């Protein structure tokens, strides 16, 4: 059985809106890039895990094989909300650790187009005769009548809960968007590469207070892929592949433990804290050892909470952390130097894989203009409601 698992190939498409392509065009582009990066062909791969949310019932893993090569290997079609991509990576990792294969391919792909904000409301016809339905026995549309359960509102409320406890201001939340949009100007694969001033962000259309439009991630299309490899297999590969290999020091997946009120308002904190604690223990590193972090900034409010959840700041100190400049690319712990979900984009199934692509690229010293110099340890985090959280810690090869 392999003791370590390595990333030996990775690639991602640009994120954006590609109406002329379909899901497979995007998946093939990322997969081909990862195979080329690892100097492998599809015939050498022993397992495929393909993550996708919106077309998950179409057996997209097999559809990818139909377009690239049918080799008879096991295929796992993975869906786990916004943690889908990270879960696909973990499936490949577990198969290697279980000794079922030496080379696993994980792909995340999504085609959302311009479908509006994630979980945006659709108007439905009103019922003509009131009849209690569902587990709450409701007779009317509950969204907007009994608060909001759409993603913009849920993450806004998660933010204000923290704000009520720790005194965070809307301006501090807005700084997250300022940082990530600024970072994206250096990333040619980002959906948007436009800097916004803090004043522009605060003056923009309010979506769900305190989040304005530039504080919400866009929907879009894209794909990313990673190829994982066992210790034993790595030793047989080309020296240049070995030199560029990046160790997966921890791969953790958690779901919500019970907390009071957690079924009323999604608790995005506890499962992230649990995942981080497990990942740090497995990797034998702590937050102070991290050179960069890619975390799940689906909304600006979310990023601020995860500073605290991942232990990047003092407990309750996320507002001061952003004020200090620490998570900017020239700060103490650069966060979302890719531009994050807010600007790089968030094609759901691809996001978790793309976060790993970003960390690996920096650890290899191949991130070009956005390179964090000397990066040796990085953390990739995603969370999907409700609820799955994936945390991967990656380390440069010694």
């Amino acid at each position, binding site marked *: 059985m392999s003791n370590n698992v390595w990333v030996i190939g990775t690639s991602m498409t640009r994120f954006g809106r590609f109406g002329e392509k379909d899901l497979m065009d995007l998946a093939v582009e990322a997969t081909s890039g990862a195979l080329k990066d690892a100097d492998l062909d599809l015939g050498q791969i022993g397992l495929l895990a393909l993550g996708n949310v919106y077309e998950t019932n179409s057996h997209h893993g097999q559809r990818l094989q139909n377009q690239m090569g049918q080799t008879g290997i096991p295929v796992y079609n993975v869906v786990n909300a916004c943690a889908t991509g990270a879960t696909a990576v973990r499936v490949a990792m577990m198969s290697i650790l279980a000794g079922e294969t030496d080379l696993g391919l994980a792909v995340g792909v999504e085609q959302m187009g311009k479908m509006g904000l994630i979980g945006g409301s659709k108007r439905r016809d009103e019922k003509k005769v*009131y009849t209690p339905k569902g587990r709450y026995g409701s007779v*009317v549309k509950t969204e907007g009548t*009994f608060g909001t359960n*759409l993603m913009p509102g849920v993450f806004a409320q998660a933010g*204000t809960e923290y704000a009520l406890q720790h005194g965070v201001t809307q301006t501090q939340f807005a700084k997250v968007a300022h940082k990530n949009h600024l970072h994206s100007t250096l990333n040619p694969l980002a959906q948007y590469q436009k800097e916004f001033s803090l004043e522009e962000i605060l003056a923009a259309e309010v979506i*769900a207070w305190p989040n304005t439009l530039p504080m919400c991630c866009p929907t879009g299309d894209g794909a990313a892929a990673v190829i994982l490899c066992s210790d034993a297999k790595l030793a047989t590969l080309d020296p240049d592949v070995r030199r560029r290999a990046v160790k997966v020091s921890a791969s953790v997946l958690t779901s919500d433990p019970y907390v009071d009120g957690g*079924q009323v308002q999604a608790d995005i904190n506890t499962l992230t804290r649990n995942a981080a604690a497990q990942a740090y223990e497995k990797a034998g590193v702590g937050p102070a050892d991290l050179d960069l972090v890619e975390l799940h900034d689906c909304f600006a409010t979310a990023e601020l909470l995860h500073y605290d959840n991942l232990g990047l700041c003092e407990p309750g100190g996320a507002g001061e952390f952003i004020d200090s400049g620490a998570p900017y690319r020239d700060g103490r712990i650069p966060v979302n130097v890719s531009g994050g979900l807010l600007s790089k984009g968030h094609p759901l199934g691809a996001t978790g894989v793309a976060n790993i692509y970003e960390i690996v690229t920096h650890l290899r010293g191949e991130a070009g203009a956005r390179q964090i110099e000397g990066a040796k340890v990085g953390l990739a985090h995603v969370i999907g409601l409700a609820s799955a959280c994936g945390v991967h810690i990656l380390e440069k090869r010694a």
Partner: protein
Amino acid sequence: MPAQIPAVDYLVLGNEPHLQVWRCDDCSAAYFDRRNGCARCFGTAFTRQPVASEGVVRAFTRVERGAKEPFTSVVVDLGEGVHVKANLRGVDDPNLITPDFKVRMFTYVVGTDDEGTEAVAFAFEPVGS
């Protein structure tokens, strides 16, 4: 007076409208929805129990896009492990919501169906308003 029906089955109408939860008989975890089991202790026996109509805002937002009319959504801590999500009336400016913001529940007619039956919903308003 037209017939009325609660807009959700955890709202009890009458002279003193209130919310009710399913309490787990084993661990007292509280739920508003129909249950198969307890997510905390795996118990399967539950008892209906009324809950407080006043509480403290734990989280909030003002939804401006995606709604017919902007509304303020709140998560209210009603005590004894019970949290409820609802609209907050009378506070359009979210900057006015501060720590320990106290609210109380009220009911209102949210709609009428083709047979004339009124659906009654609940919302919250600031205590003292």
